[in-house]
């Protein structure tokens, strides 16, 4: 067994520097690497490019890094829940590259799996495709999208073991598996870190080969963005 376990978030983030590109898992506030984000805030790393589907809310998730003006550029598909984000974007303080959600996921997966680029129909004929190579297959038009390149991936899983194997829970899975192994170094934070052999190999979602460092997250707030319930009738 190759042991990927590190002591804590500080050791897990060793090597992060100003100006780097990070991938961060999560959809909305669901399945975000809360501990890595908190450490990035603490370290005060600046001029970051973040690849993340969303940008958090004003006071949680990536919103915490936006508040401190640590982010130079966001690559996301939807940023509607964050007023500070919108303000920084409209004023030009923050560079934003909006990418269709499926394309964003596939650009991560392509990086993970060694594809330099791929064709997708998403965005053809829109401003997303401007300046990009297009090609026809079977009478339909497609846009060439390159794989992402990133320095670190920060992902969050439910359970993991010392070998770096990961299991996700519910829709907290989202972008996390696609980002594993898609950057030079993948850091996984888990709710429960177990000894190797504790997880059933049949039930592993992401094999440890895609993960360089794994640690038990100190705290997971798991904030709910839109708590919606129905009444018992």
């Amino acid at each position: 067994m190759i042991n990927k376990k590190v002591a804590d978030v500080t050791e897990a983030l060793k090597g992060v520097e100003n100006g780097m590109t990070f991938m961060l898992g999560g959809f909305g506030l669901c399945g975000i690497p809360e501990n890595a984000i908190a450490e990035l805030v603490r370290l005060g790393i600046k001029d970051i490019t973040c690849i993340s589907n969303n940008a958090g809310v004003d006071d949680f998730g990536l919103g915490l890094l936006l508040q401190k003006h640590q982010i130079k550029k966001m690559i996301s598909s939807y940023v509607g829940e964050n007023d500070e984000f919108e303000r920084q974007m409209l004023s030009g303080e923050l560079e934003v590259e909006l990418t269709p959600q499926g394309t964003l996921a596939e650009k991560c997966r392509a990086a993970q799996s060694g594809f330099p680029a791929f064709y997708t129909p998403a965005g053809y004929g829109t401003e997303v495709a401007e300046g990009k190579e297009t090609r026809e297959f079977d009478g339909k038009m497609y846009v060439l999208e390159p794989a992402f390149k990133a320095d670190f991936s920060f992902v969050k899983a439910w359970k993991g073991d010392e070998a770096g194997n990961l299991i996700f829970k519910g829709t907290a899975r989202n972008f996390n598996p696609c980002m594993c192994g898609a950057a030079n170094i993948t850091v996984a934070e888990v709710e429960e870190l177990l000894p190797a052999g504790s997880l059933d190999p049949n039930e592993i979602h992401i094999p440890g080969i895609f993960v360089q460092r794994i640690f038990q997250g100190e705290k997971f707030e798991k904030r709910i963005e839109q708590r919606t319930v129905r009444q018992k009738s």
Partner: protein
Amino acid sequence: MLDKNGIAKRIAKEVKDGYYVNLGIGIPTLVANFVRDDISVEFQSENGVLGMGPFPFEGEEDADIINAGKQTITTLPGASFFDSALSFGMIRGKHVHLTILGAMEVAENGDIANWKIPGKMVKGMGGAMDLVASAENIIVAMMHTNRAGKSKLLKRCTLPLTGVGCVKKIVTNLAVLEVTPDGFKLLERAPGVSVEEIEKATEGKLVVNGEIPEMNI
């Protein structure tokens, strides 16, 4: 004239037995409430769940189980979770049978705009561009006119596009329309709405052939 629930109720009639359906945020989400219970349908949410159920009862919310609108949800027997790449594989690979989404503008050639108002509102396209580029069966659910009373069914979209030539059917508070090479073909009128009212609220070319029946909802 229909309200939002009325639009959702009419669209629910388009959902057929055996369909996997993706519902967008807003009116489309309401469609799930009106689908006949004697047919088998599974709802997909592009953040990574098939077999979505109703909202949870108070106290049973799970932060790890949400829909694309970030609302807490439940799952039904037979449900599954998956990652974002696989989710959009389902969509791009045409395994999802029907996509229902909202729009700010639809053009008579089937173009749709629903993600950006330059200088004013830039929330992003989320999964909409992937959905409209791949789905073979797209229904737009929206009000016929915007808050300023201007038509949302246009000759050409004025806002940045989400997709080109992709919308097949539109259900509004006034009418059901089909996108055809000749323009918006009027299929049905909302209860109590005249053809003239629909013509007045439609900027794009409206094709009216013979008697137009009233919706049966």
